[in-house]
């Protein structure tokens, strides 16, 4: 567990330093130089921070879905608790991804929002998280809350492959990998970023953010369990 904690701190710090300090050079010769990508230049550094948050929010949602599904099978409230915690973290990362994306869009494409398919999909995810928590707050009974929100998470999760993979490729858009874009990339293979060292740093960043997510998840789970135990002991005292 401490590997996760200190690993995430070390990795993210490393990515921050390397991502920002490594200079951009027209023809990079060694590992400590990044290529200049026309149209992006310095803004390319955003890749190390914006894309991993988007990845992490999708991961968090999938985790939430899986725990929801396990709750439905076993009716064990522990799974529901984990589902909510992951959804909460997912919401946070989703907001980060949307905001960082909009900021980057303003400087790269001219406006904060253009309804590019991939921008739309992070917006959809944001709405799904919002709807998930609205649903939960509308139900009083614990078991019903858990069951219905788990079903909603799964139903919403069924649309995820559509808006993450299919739509952005089939429709014209501004993100790399859209219809008519020759660089043929996508969220997984940022081929706009051919440079080996950039790609390595990107995956390191992905790992760092995911480890951070895991750490935050365990922290929230432990705090929730302590609160539950306190509630229980206060009940039994009376």
């Amino acid at each position: 567990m401490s590997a996760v904690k200190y690993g995430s701190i070390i990795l993210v710090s490393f990515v921050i330093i390397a991502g920002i300090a490594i200079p951009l050079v027209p023809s990079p010769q060694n590992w400590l130089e990044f290529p200049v990508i026309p149209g992006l230049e310095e803004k390319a550094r955003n890749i190390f921070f914006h894309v991993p948050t988007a990845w992490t929010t999708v991961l968090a949602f999938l985790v939430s879905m899986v725990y929801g599904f396990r709750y439905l099978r076993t009716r064990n409230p522990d799974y529901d608790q984990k589902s909510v915690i992951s959804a909460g973290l997912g919401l946070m990362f989703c907001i980060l991804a949307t905001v960082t994306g909009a900021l980057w869009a303003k400087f790269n494409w001219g406006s904060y929002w253009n309804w590019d398919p991939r921008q739309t999909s992070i917006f959809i995810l944001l709405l799904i998280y919002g709807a998930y928590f609205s649903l939960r707050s509308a139900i009083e009974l614990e078991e019903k809350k858990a069951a219905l929100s788990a079903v909603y998470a799964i139903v919403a999760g069924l649309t995820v492959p559509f808006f993450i993979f299919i739509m952005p490729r089939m429709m014209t858009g501004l993100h790399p990998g859209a219809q008519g874009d020759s660089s043929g990339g996508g969220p997984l293979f940022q081929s706009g970023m051919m440079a080996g060292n950039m790609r390595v740093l990107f995956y390191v960043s992905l790992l760092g953010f995911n480890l951070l997510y895991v750490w935050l998840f365990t922290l929230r789970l432990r705090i929730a369990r302590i609160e539950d135990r306190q509630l229980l002991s206060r009940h039994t005292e009376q």
Partner: protein
Amino acid sequence: MLTLAQIMAVFLKDVRSELRTRYALNALLMFVVTTVAIILFALRGDQPGSTVLAGMFWVSVFFTAMSGLSRSFVSEEERGTTMTLQLIASSTTVYFGKLLFNAVLTLVLVAGVTVVYLIVFPAFEITGMGVFLLTVFLGSLGLASAATIIAAIIAKAGSRGTLYPVLSFPILIVPLMTVMGATVKSLEGVPFSDATVDFVVLISYFMVMTAGSVLLFDYVWKD
């Protein structure tokens, strides 16, 4: 226990109770007329282009659907007939019966919206009739399948007013975007082959939604 006759029985029961009160049909028709009237006031004689018309068309459909499609489950809760239905029919039968009802309702709704738009907006010319019909048909199915499972969820959640559109919209953005694009293509008279990708998306969306709903419906329906 899952037979077509049983599904038809659930479907016909809903149809009969709707025909008795005609609540849903009236409300939906009035809703369509109201939204189109408001749009007309806002436009003040301006004629919108095909992209805007296609968008408005499906906005009208979406909101009208949101006001009407939850009836199939909420009315059961309101009338207290949920438990009877649970005892009499299997979950899957109930689901398919309600799905069929919502699909038919959506098709009727969309037909109504089409008629109104044809009358009110001269720019709404359906050049590619085949594309339009298929788009409208597949779009209605997709909408109905997502709307049905969400209706089941909110009926059990106390169905407080705004919850239905809030839950449905994120899930429906995918088919809505697809269907709006396809409608634009049908208004502009684009060849059929250009729209096939939209149809594939709509069909797969419908299949995925229905399959998922069938598997999950039990957890919603039986509490």
